[in-house]
């Protein structure tokens, strides 16, 4: 087990998927079973490896970066292969490997058109490398590389396996194929943000003794090395880069399109992990390196989050497309996460992390369900759906459960993120404008009512009532074994985290407290 | 003025006139032959400047091999032998002349202003010394260049080889 502790374990977790993806491309196309089996096994091995890291992880020192390593990478710019995890990244890393396994299980029998399992599974594995890498990277350049790696597979997933219907888009004269529009929008939007982010990284590099190492930069930042206009500008560009990914209002418009167009597994991974990269960036990079700037920007972030919560919920009320509704709900839920982060208190940031995990689990499941339903009914229009509980009882029951979890029902995972974020926002860090935060908190609380409103309305339109006659003729298949195998673990996880939040808090609390103590003093 | 200089000026005149012919003649063969003369004059210039080994290489490689290659090229691509009015792109002529002229003026200006000096022609052979330097100090680039040549050899063969598939396509 010593192998796991000196960085090799983490490296394996990060790079095993992409190596598997390469091997996958070497397997001939005709060996479909082998392709699927290999992808599944490699994702499971990655997951098991990440779980094996747990006993090696010293929970009593969860605030220290552990199991890492530092190897010279590009000497000329002093960029190192520096990795490690602490209590903040651990839950997210395991979530990422876990969700990938489920995504591959689901894909075994439910590949979107055009089938081609080889390319699709390889892309999922490449995506996993990007996600895992982002969570373990402790070097800005390394972080950036992984952050960008994620874009490509998702771009191809949406662009090739996405929704082929043609729709008109505001601002364009001609009608556009949804997947084309969405994939390009997704790519360009995120790239736009990360280009600025790279500028910020470079700025930190030149002001910060030519180092890209995040721990070293944190030391510098907390000792007051970055000040004045420079720091403001750097925080602004970092904010832009991360906020697009989160996404925060008003940088969110790529999200509904991408989610609507993406294949089921794509939406799941997008919602479950990709959105977390942005908020993780705030916690890992932006706040500890530039604490004073974070403090100055916090009210603005809080206001934007509050707008996002209300706005997302209102937009949900106007949707007729099931997947689009869930996508907009992500805007609202990530608003809670960002509200927690903006409070800059241990409670708020813990809330943000558990909110991220919970959102990953719950919204991931919602997208699984809605994707499967869209596949079965060949429509996502909620006006035509209805009586789903009768037609597909298993899927319907799970949809009901997940909607309840999503609206923040206490006892299920979603509750802690919402409640604790509001708790944190009520008493933000000393020196922040209490009025703004309390108003945001009240807006968030109203948001929970609206959230309940649109989710229940969605349930009423989709799940309840008598089924429409058009489905009488059709042969509808309820969830099969593969789907249930992918969904049930998420249900269990939702309940587990809901009943016993220590699963997350136990890892994150020390790390968050020490991070904030370092940044803002005791 | 020494005899060398007078000869040099003649050579320079010849260089320019043959070079002009290379780029203006409407007969492909003439162009190639003119290039031979240009190169030969260059070789003589090199001899005057006591770089006899380079001059020799120039004659061997260029006039001996490259020009032959060109003639083969002209032959294989079935370029019309004799006068051919379509050899030049008339639309480009004026603009090309203007650009080439301005580059010439620019270079001349820089060269005349920048380099002012005399050359004393050394007597005796420098070939031995050249060989020594080439095989000691510059041995690595020298070997490298041989690889480049090898690569070019293989590349040339690969490119020029008639592909089975392509032959079929051609005949269809």
């Amino acid at each position, binding site marked *: 087990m010593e192998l796991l502790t000196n960085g090799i374990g983490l490296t394996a977790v990060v790079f095993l998927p992409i190596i598997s993806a390469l091997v996958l491309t070497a397997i001939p196309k005709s060996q479909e079973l082998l392709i699927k089996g290999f992808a599944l096994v490699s994702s499971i091995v990655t997951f098991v490896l990440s779980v094996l890291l747990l006993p090696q992880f010293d929970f009593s020192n969860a605030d220290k970066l552990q199991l890492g390593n530092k190897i010279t990478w590009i000497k000329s710019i002093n960029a190192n292969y520096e990795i490690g995890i602490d209590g903040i990244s651990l839950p997210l890393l395991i979530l990422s490997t876990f969700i990938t396994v489920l995504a591959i299980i689901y894909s075994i029998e439910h590949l979107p058109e055009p089938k081609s399992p080889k390319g699709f599974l390889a892309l999922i594995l490449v995506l996993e490398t990007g996600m895992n890498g982002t969570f373990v990277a402790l070097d800005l350049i390394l972080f950036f590389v992984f952050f960008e790696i994620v874009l490509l597979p998702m771009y191809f997933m949406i662009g090739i396996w996405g929704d082929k219907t043609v729709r008109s888009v505001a601002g364009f004269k001609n009608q556009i194929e949804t997947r084309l529009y969405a994939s390009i929008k997704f790519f360009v939007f995120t790239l736009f943000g990360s280009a600025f982010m790279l500028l910020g990284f470079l700025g930190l590099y030149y002001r910060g003794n030519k180092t890209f190492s995040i721990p070293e930069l944190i030391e510098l930042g907390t000792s007051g090395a970055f000040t004045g206009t420079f720091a403001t500008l750097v925080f602004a560009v970092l904010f832009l880069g991360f906020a697009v990914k989160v996404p925060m209002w008003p940088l969110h418009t790529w999200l509904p399109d991408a989610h609507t167009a993406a294949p089921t597994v794509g939406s799941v991974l997008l919602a479950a992990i990709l959105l977390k990269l942005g908020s993780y960036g705030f916690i890992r990079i932006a706040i500890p390196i530039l604490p004073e700037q974070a403090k100055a920007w916090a009210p603005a972030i809080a206001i934007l989050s509050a707008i996002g919560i209300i706005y997302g919920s209102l937009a949900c009320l106007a949707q007729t497309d099931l997947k689009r509704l869930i996508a907009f709900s992500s805007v609202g839920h990530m608003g809670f996460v960002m509200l927690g982060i903006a409070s800059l208190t241990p409670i708020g940031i813990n809330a943000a992390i558990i909110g991220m995990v919970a959102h990953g689990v719950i919204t991931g499941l919602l997208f699984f369900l809605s994707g499967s339903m869209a596949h079965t009914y060949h429509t996502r229009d909620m006006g035509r759906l209805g009586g789903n509980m009768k037609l597909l009882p298993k899927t319907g029951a799970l949809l009901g459960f997940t909607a309840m979890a999503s609206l923040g029902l206490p006892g299920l995972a979603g509750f802690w993120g919402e409640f604790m974020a509001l708790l944190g926002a009520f008493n933000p860090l000393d020196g922040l404008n209490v009025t703004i935060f309390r108003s945001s908190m009240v807006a968030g609380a109203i948001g929970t009512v609206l959230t309940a409103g649109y989710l229940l309305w969605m349930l009423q339109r989709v799940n309840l009532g008598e089924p429409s006659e058009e489905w009488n003729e059709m042969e509808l298949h309820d969830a099969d074994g593969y789907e249930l195998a992918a969904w049930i673990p998420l249900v269990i996880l939702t309940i587990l985290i809901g009943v016993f939040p220590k699963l997350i808090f136990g890892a994150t609390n020390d790390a968050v407290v020490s991070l904030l103590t370092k940044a803002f003093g005791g | 003025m020494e005899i060398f200089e007078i000869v040099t000026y003649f050579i320079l005149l010849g260089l320019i006139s043959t070079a002009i012919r290379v780029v203006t003649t409407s007969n492909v063969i003439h162009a190639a032959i003119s290039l031979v003369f240009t190169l030969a004059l260059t070789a003589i210039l090199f001899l005057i400047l006591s770089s006899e080994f*380079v001059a020799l*290489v120039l004659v061997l490689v260029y006039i001996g091999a490259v020009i032959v290659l060109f003639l083969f090229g002209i032959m*294989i691509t079935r370029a019309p032998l004799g006068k051919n009015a379509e*050899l030049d792109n008339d639309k480009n002529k004026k603009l090309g002349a203007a650009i080439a002229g301005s580059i010439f003026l620019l270079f001349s200006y820089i060269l005349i202003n920048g380099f002012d000096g005399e050359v004393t022609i050394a007597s005796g052979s420098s070939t031995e010394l050249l060989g020594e330097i080439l095989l000691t100090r510059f041995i690595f680039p020298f070997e490298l260049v041989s690889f480049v040549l090898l690569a*070019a050899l293989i590349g040339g063969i690969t490119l020029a080889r008639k592909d089975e598939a392509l032959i079929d396509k051609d005949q269809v």
Partner: protein
Amino acid sequence: MIVQPVLVVAAALFSLGIYGILVRRNAVMVLLSIELILNAVNINFIMFDAMLADTLMQGQIFTIFIITIAAAEVGIGLAIVLMLFRNRQTANINEFDLMKW
């Protein structure tokens, strides 16, 4: 011997080469013009070598390298022209506008 006239003639050869590249239609002729340019460079190198009386004779050595590379270049270049000719039945470079939008 004064250097300027030789250098100016080399510049003239260079410019003529460029003129040739810009104006000629036949691909082989374009390659021919490139040789002219290389030759101009060679002359300069030898001239500078003589002028500076370099003990390492770098000017001559470079000229040798250039000649070698030029030979390789002609080989590859003609092979490409041959290939193009085989596919298009012409060596007229105006016909080759695959890079066009």
